[in-house]
């Protein structure tokens, strides 16, 4: 039985091994994203990749855990978390007051602007007010969904912002899509004929979400996040995907969505 005891000792001696963190699988940090949100999370030939995934990996490593990113539709991602399907959401979910009633959020791990996109050459939408009664495409249960509902009843729902943008590029389907500026820019890079209207309307704070009672885990995550921001890992990842540091933004004078 000597083997057994030595191996279990090894497990618990690992730094932050997570046995007190109420993890789904011992030693593994299981995190969810939609996988349909390029460039933050997407799958290529069966491999999950993107900014969110890299951040998750870095944080897991920092906590001494094996990263285990999974995907689940965004509409049901909070239900998934609260029904113990994974340990945390690292899926570009912005912190809002409403969501904060269901889950606990970490410090933001990037800032992004909520923006209106239209098909290239569209003239009748110049500002957010022009969205009134227009046909808007959004992903259900996003912050963009909430905004869209303020302006119109004619909303078409998608599981993926990227797909909504693809649909926007097709003549005759949608008038506008509300999504994150970076996601729209990525689509533009891919050759989609869409463009952003004006500046981002507001700034959101995508954060890592955990179950309300997982306070120890949240603390560990915040610690790990601080560490990777300080030691340059974060910057490396952000540069890799966007050529800039997403946290590097002047919050002076812009609306921050809560």
């Amino acid at each position, binding site marked *: 039985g000597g083997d057994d005891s030595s191996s279990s000792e090894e497990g618990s001696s690992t730094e932050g091994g997570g046995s007190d963190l109420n993890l789904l699988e011992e030693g593994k940090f299981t995190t969810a994203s939609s996988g*349909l949100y390029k460039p933050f999370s*997407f799958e*290529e*030939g069966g*491999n999950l990749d993107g900014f969110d995934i890299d951040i998750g990996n870095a944080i897991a490593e920092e906590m001494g855990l094996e990263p285990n990113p999974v995907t689940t539709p965004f509409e*049901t991602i909070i239900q998934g978390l609260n029904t113990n399907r994974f340990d945390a959401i690292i899926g570009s979910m912005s912190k809002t007051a409403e969501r904060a009633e269901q889950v606990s959020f970490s410090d933001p791990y990037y800032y992004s602007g909520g923006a209106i996109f239209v098909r290239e050459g569209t003239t009748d939408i110049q500002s957010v007010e022009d969205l009134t009664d227009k046909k808007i495409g959004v992903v259900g249960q996003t912050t963009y969904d909430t905004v869209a509902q303020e302006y119109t009843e004619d909303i078409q729902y998608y599981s*993926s912002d990227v797909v909504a943008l*693809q649909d926007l590029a097709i003549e005759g389907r949608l008038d506008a899509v509300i999504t994150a500026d970076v996601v729209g820019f990525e689509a533009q890079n891919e050759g989609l004929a869409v463009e952003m209207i004006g500046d981002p309307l507001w700034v959101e704070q995508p954060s890592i979400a955990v179950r309300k009672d997982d306070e120890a885990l949240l603390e560990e995550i915040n610690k790990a996040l601080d560490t990777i921001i300080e030691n340059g890992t974060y910057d490396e990842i952000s540069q890799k995907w966007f050529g800039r540091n997403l946290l590097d933004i002047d919050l002076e004078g812009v609306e921050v969505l809560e």
Partner: protein
Amino acid sequence: MPEIITTVYDVFMRTYPGFLEATVVTLQLTAIGVILGTVIGLVFALMKISGSKILQAIANIYITIIRGTPLIVQIMFLYFGIVELYTMSNFWAGAIALGVHNGAYIAEIFRGSIQGIDPGQREASMSLGMDRRQTMSRIVFPQALRRSIPPLGNQFIITLKDSSLVYIIGVAEIFSLGNREAAQSYQPFESFLVVALYYLVLVMIFTFLLRLYENKLDVDRA
């Protein structure tokens, strides 16, 4: 046209490692769904022919509910609805949903096969002095089982296609992968064509095997 063939080929070549893994998941879901469904179906079929009014009523309610609601609703209900009772992984929730769903259809397959056996078989058996149990186990069941295999094979093929719906709870099967592929590559036409091809080939393979088996049965009996 040839350009499309090239791009489809490119997408196929680029994605096949992932798709092969997803195919394994699809086949696992299908197999578990059918096996579980067969067990459930057998139980409910026996309840339906049991003669007990209560058991019959239970079986009828089960079958009515399952056949009266879409599979996708059943999947969601099982995965998100009943978590307070029991929490399962998305793969198992999907497989069990497929099994529970199939159970109702397979119950009807078994019931149909059993009731489809010429009543003369039962009468001949009884008139020879065999009791109900012997008649069932030695005369009716063996014939009914044989008769059930083609529709069960068919149900397997239906399940293969139905398994695409568990993408909604995030199981990485063929359709779910194709969906992501379509979103990230900005090539929906090619991606869904590749997805369709995977299913078509799988369905054709199993249809072929089923035919082979049916022919063998025919030959055995001729």
